[in-house]
């Protein structure tokens, strides 16, 4: 099967993720959408790696997972603390600072 299709899939996932970020309120979900975008990137890396026949892309994918994991740690910490303070994880509630 033509690896290019994986690229299309990756692009699709990325777009879905991005859209999710734009439309979902719950910080957790938004964050998940970002993770989805990262995964889309990973897919693209792997697909390219396959096309080029060199391993860089796959290695990068591993790095990305690690980084994403770290991001989760930090992100969840922040979001949870926010949630505990406000008893809501809606990103729209957090709009003290504006203008």
């Amino acid at each position, binding site marked *: 099967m033509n690896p*290019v299709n994986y*690229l299309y899939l*990756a692009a699709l996932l*990325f777009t879905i*993720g*991005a859209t999710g*970020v734009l439309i979902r309120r719950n*910080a957790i979900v*938004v*964050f998940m959408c*970002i993770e989805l*975008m*990262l995964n*889309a*990137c990973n897919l*693209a*890396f792997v*697909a*390219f790696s396959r*096309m*080029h*026949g*060199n391993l*860089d*892309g796959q*290695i*990068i994918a591993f*790095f*990305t997972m690690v*980084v994403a994991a*770290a*991001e989760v740690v*930090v*992100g969840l*910490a*922040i*979001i949870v*603390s*926010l949630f*505990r*303070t*406000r008893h809501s994880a809606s*990103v729209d509630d*957090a*709009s*003290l*600072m*504006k203008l």
Partner: protein
Amino acid sequence: MSAVAVHSLWTTAADPISKIDAPKFEYGQMSPTLIVVGAAIVGVLVEAFVPRKFRYYAQVFVSAVALAAAFAAVVALAADGYGTTKARIAAMGAIAVDGPALFLQGTILLAGLVGLFTFAERRLDPAAHGNRVDSFAAQAASVPGSDSEKAAVKAGFTTTEVFPLLLFAVAGMLIFPAANDLLTLFVALEVFSLPLYLMCALARRKRLMSQEAAVKYFLLGAFASAFTLFGIALLYGYAGSVTYAKIAQVVDGTVTTVDPALVDTMGNDALLLIGAAMIVMGLLFKVGAVPFHMWTPDVYQGAPTPVTGFMAAATKVAAFGALLRILYVVLPGLRWDWRPVMWGVAVVTMLGGAIVAITQTDIKRMLAYSSIAHAGFILAGVIATTPDGVSSVLFYLAAYSFVTIGAFAVVTLVRDAGGEATHLSKWAGLGRRSPLVAAVFAVFLLAFAGIPLTSGFAGKFAVFKAAAEGGAAPLVVIGVISSAIAAFFYIRVIVLMFFSEPSPEGPTVAVPSPLTTTAIGVGVAVTLVLGVAPQYFLDLASQAGVFVR
């Protein structure tokens, strides 16, 4: 047949280990980063093992020593000629050790050191239950206003974790402008971003705003880095490699041998252009360029002021460094494509920042917008695509970062019952109350406004000159116009401080410890020296103006 022969039917012997050559790693040239990272880890251990009441001192000591040592290392490297003649790619092509890298690393380290002083300041807030407190939450995990928080305050907890966090961030920033392949770039980006997200959430006062700032910064930052990452993927797909040199070769079409397997992707300009655009976007987000700037005011306002100062200065330096390297090393062949786009970004950034700043009522937000405008000015220098362009940007960054840290340090001094009094109306008549502080802040404002004899002017002149020589005269004119607009609100603050009557319930100006004093003093000194006698630093910058590839 023999067993071996049979065996060899379905197996092949793996190559001997010796064939995978061990990674070659130039510790000497990497020393600045390594020192800082090491110190950061030590800091973590300190948190783990040193009793609470000693931690603060231990941390401050460790961080200060580390940053100073790292800076010394940078200077040593530069003196050793790594900035110019011996510039090279280190760490198996992952890191570039060259003029821009060293110059920016030096700047970042100094900024970090000065920032550290403001982090460590414990005299401004009134002591709680006899414990000296700094600007950071007693216990970040405890809910604001909850009993646990009160208990933490009573127990005199302080979040000394900020120091290792700071060091990690610095480490990431050190790598960021030196990164020589896109993966390193991405990792470095995350390494310095994540600590910043956390530090934003750690304010002692106004914790809700602080947490909100953190969330906003985190979500948007992650969003942006996702874009960057996808861009990296595309470039990888385009060039079949993530190292700058290789990509550049492909872009220039000077690639020696085209692997037949790559023909269908390599040289596919759609990939290249989209990928480049997405990576650049991620960097523009970090420098806070319009339209990727919207996190800046909120985060600057919400974050603890020392963090804001450090972030505003160091992040810009690192991000612009990376941006320069990408544009000058990876994409010079593409400049006819990205220059017009960057023109547009620069214009809207300069004007947008300046115009919106006019109507701000919070000093920190105002400085945030001013920093956006400044990002625009720097972009003008970036666009020049000449050696002068590089050196002018380097100079501007150095000048700007110290003014910024100094300015935010002054902001930490002006306080009332609710902590820092950041609303502009509170600053009325400050010049009458404490002329010295007001005068110092006025100096910083004038530097922001680019009045001659301040570093701001020298920097602005440098970038505009470079831009004009690079054939971007209209950009210079717009830059001049927007600095005229910008002048208006800097002046407004000065008017407020000196010419309007102080309000009776106005804020008090806390007397800082030598730490903050040093930070501010350094800021003023650098501002004036770079304003009056910039030649030496301009020389440094122009020597450092050449990238290795």
